[in-house]
């Protein structure tokens, strides 16, 4: 062995000792279940080499309430409140997806006014949910709650409208099989008009505050990148998928509740990083407002609930209905054996499945990047665990 080889090996040894370390070992840190940035009881176990994430593993189940088993004991109508509690930040979307699945099973025709109301509340829910998602995302980037509180102001107004209509703000239990539970109250439409009039200015304010913020760019650009191929293969959906550039939106691809009658566009990103997810959500809020404008202008009259027996017994069969919830593709798979309760009740939770690629997105970045990535995926733990 030559001297040069000796030197090289010695150098290599030193470098190894410095990087992987003799006697040093990676640190395992639990982020969660109670942690300011996990948005609920979610535990991310990261293995760190210094600040660099070597491995990220999620431990979930802290909020598991066995909804799917419970739902097998209750009638189709009684199951609607469960769906609120699956994704409590988008209760209306969950109500809607479940009711669509049940209606498909029962063969119920929904009156046009009910469809318009459903679209209205699904889009309001999207505005509220994206406000929450973007606000907490900026918080995860380290802002001191300022954008969050500004966006919460909009969300509050949406929740006020929910309360006005169905008496509940979060777990709305508003949709019914065959329509919606109540007609719109008289004061809703003026409130909504005012909301639609105020929102453009608010959004302009957020954009002025956030879009060109260099620190936000530095924190979110090129972080948590995922390619479109990998995103599709990982079954990602919603803004996480669209941020990679894949224009897949069930409201366009498989219109339900008459979405085909409304004019709106599907924003897609380019890089598939955290910042694109944030931008896609910002753009989607604007599109939601466009849809809301059209719904308000073309609200049909008529009944808001089809005549469906409370203890409906569908024919044996199965149905799989999906909606574009704020978090992505939300599906309900129902199997009926002819009884009054579903034989099988399964929810396809976008929050859980969007986490499929979390490990791939986080490894190699820093701890702070993993937090930002998790925030940009926008999870709701109630939906992950069910």
């Amino acid at each position, binding site marked *: 062995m030559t001297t040069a080889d000796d030197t090289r090996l010695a150098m290599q040894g030193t470098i190894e000792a410095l990087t992987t370390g003799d006697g040093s070992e990676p*640190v395992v*840190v639990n982020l969660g279940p109670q*942690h*300011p*940035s996990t948005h609920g009881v979610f535990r991310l176990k990261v293995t760190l080499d210094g*600040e660099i994430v070597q491995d990220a593993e999620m431990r979930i189940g802290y909020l598991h309430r066995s909804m799917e088993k419970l739902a097998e004991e209750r009638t189709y109508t009684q199951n609607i409140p469960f769906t609120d509690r699956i994704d409590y930040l988008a209760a209306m979307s969950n109500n809607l997806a479940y009711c669509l699945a049940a209606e498909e099973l029962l063969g119920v025709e929904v009156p046009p006014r009910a469809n318009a109301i459903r679209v209205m509340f699904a889009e309001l829910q999207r505005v509220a949910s994206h406000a929450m998602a973007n606000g907490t995302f*900026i*918080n*995860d*980037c*380290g*802002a*001191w*709650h*300022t954008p969050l*509180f*500004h966006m919460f*102001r909009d969300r509050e107004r949406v929740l006020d409208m929910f309360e006005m209509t169905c008496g509940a703000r979060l777990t709305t239990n508003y949709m019914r099989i065959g329509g919606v539970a109540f007609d719109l109250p008289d004061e809703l439409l003026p409130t909504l008009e005012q909301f639609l009039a105020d929102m453009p200015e608010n959004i302009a304010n957020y954009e002025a*505050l956030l*879009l*060109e*913020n260099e*620190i*936000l*760019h*530095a*924190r979110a*650009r*090129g972080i948590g990148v995922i390619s*479109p*191929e990998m995103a*599709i293969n990982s079954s990602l959906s919603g803004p996480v998928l669209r941020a*990679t*550039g*894949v*224009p*897949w*939106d069930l409201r*366009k*691809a498989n219109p339900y509740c008459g979405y085909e009658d409304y004019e709106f*566009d*599907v*924003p*897609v*990103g*380019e*890089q598939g*990083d955290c*910042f*694109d997810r944030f*931008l*896609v959500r910002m*753009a989607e809020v604007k599109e939601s407002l466009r849809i809301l404008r059209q719904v308000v202008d073309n609200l049909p009259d008529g009944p808001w609930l089809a005549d469906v027996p409370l203890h409906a017994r569908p024919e044996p069969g199965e149905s799989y209905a999906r909606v574009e919830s704020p978090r992505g593709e939300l599906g309900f798979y129902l199997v009926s054996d002819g009884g009054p309760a579903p034989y099988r009740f399964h929810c396809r939770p976008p929050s859980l499945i969007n986490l499929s690629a979390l490990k791939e997105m986080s490894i190699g970045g*820093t*701890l*702070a*990047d993993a*937090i930002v990535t998790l*925030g940009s995926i926008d999870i709701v733990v109630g939906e992950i665990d069910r």
Partner: protein
Amino acid sequence: MTDPAGLVSVLGSTLGAWYDFRDLNNLQRLITEWIADWGPDWLASIIAGVLGTLGILGVIGPTLLILIWVERKVIARFQQRYGPNRVGPKGLLQPVADAVKLILKEQLAPRAADKLIFFLPPVLIFVPGVLIWGVLPFGPRMSVADLNVGVLFLLAVSGTTVLVIFMAGWSSNNKYALFGAMRAVAMSISYEVPMVLALLTLVVFSGTMSINGIVQWQQQEDVIFILLFPLSAIAFFFAASAELNRTPADISEAESEIVAGYHTEYSGMRFGLFYAVELGNTLVVSAFIATFFLGGWWLWGLDQWVPSWIILLVKTGAVYFLLIWTRGTLPRLRVDQLMGFCWKALVPATLLFVVVAFVERTLLISEGWDTTVALPVMAVINIALTLGAIVLFARVSRPAPLRRPARIRMAGAQIGGLRAARQVASRTEEPQLQVGGD
């Protein structure tokens, strides 16, 4: 001393000729002189020191309570909230209620903590926090210790805080705390350098290391240092906010990452002490920024009319508001970005300005240039240099992902998978939204 303020002279004649409202130091001097008349010299110095300390603590304590309220109210206004408004008039007693709550709370210590080292930091952290106030000049003769190496003292004392923080983080036996402490140490060591360099420009230019001397230099030359060395001021402001763990540099307490950093395990009043010292340090740093760069107790002759310490407090408040403002607006930088910013941007830039200061000082002294003409010219040159440095840094330092703009396109009729994605991406029309990029 001639007294231009009529009211003050009336008051002065009423209370006795020795009493000048504008300079509280007179009061203390009188007391010490009176003691020196009958007592030994050492007693007078001790009593003078105790009086000064009590005076400072008496000012800081209530000011801190008010500042907590101010900060919460201001942040609340940024966030479209009301802020505290329940306890006392306008919520003014909220900090008192908080303090009472913290004192009554149980103080927990992790079983596996290193007990002695765990108990010490909340106490020890007070020492530099209070010592720093000693060299702050509230007026021409109003500082507890007008050291001729005041700048050195300031840097030395403020540098010890990090040791206490590391003790707290290490002894907690908590990974979040350890991470916070490690980050605090790394950041503190890094940001000391631009801080020292920023102050070095002033020391070089004014030719004194006495803090009061620096203020008096500004008074003599009728100029404040932020006009002469804006980049040093910016660097000092950023370095100080990093040392203070305030956003955008609060990585050692980054809430969304490591919960509360080094004081995660401290509860009750122990946490309260950390919090109080942090606020106190924020105040004292604002005061020093005001002193070094905004002229301290001097304000173009107004200090003849208004008590000098009130001028300093107003300037301090302005800087403090700026600190609250940045905190309320900006997200947090990542650890490596923060370090990179320090070593790649602040250190070279401040170093450049040290050289500039040397050159300009040499021109002033050896060439004997007229300061009334030379200083404005130098100010203009330095401001131009500062802007140039900032623009250059913004151009050069951007990492690759930021060089491309982020674009949002509308899918239009193309709905689908990869094929549709390619079609959307290959469209030539203007994207719906385009932000960032060079």
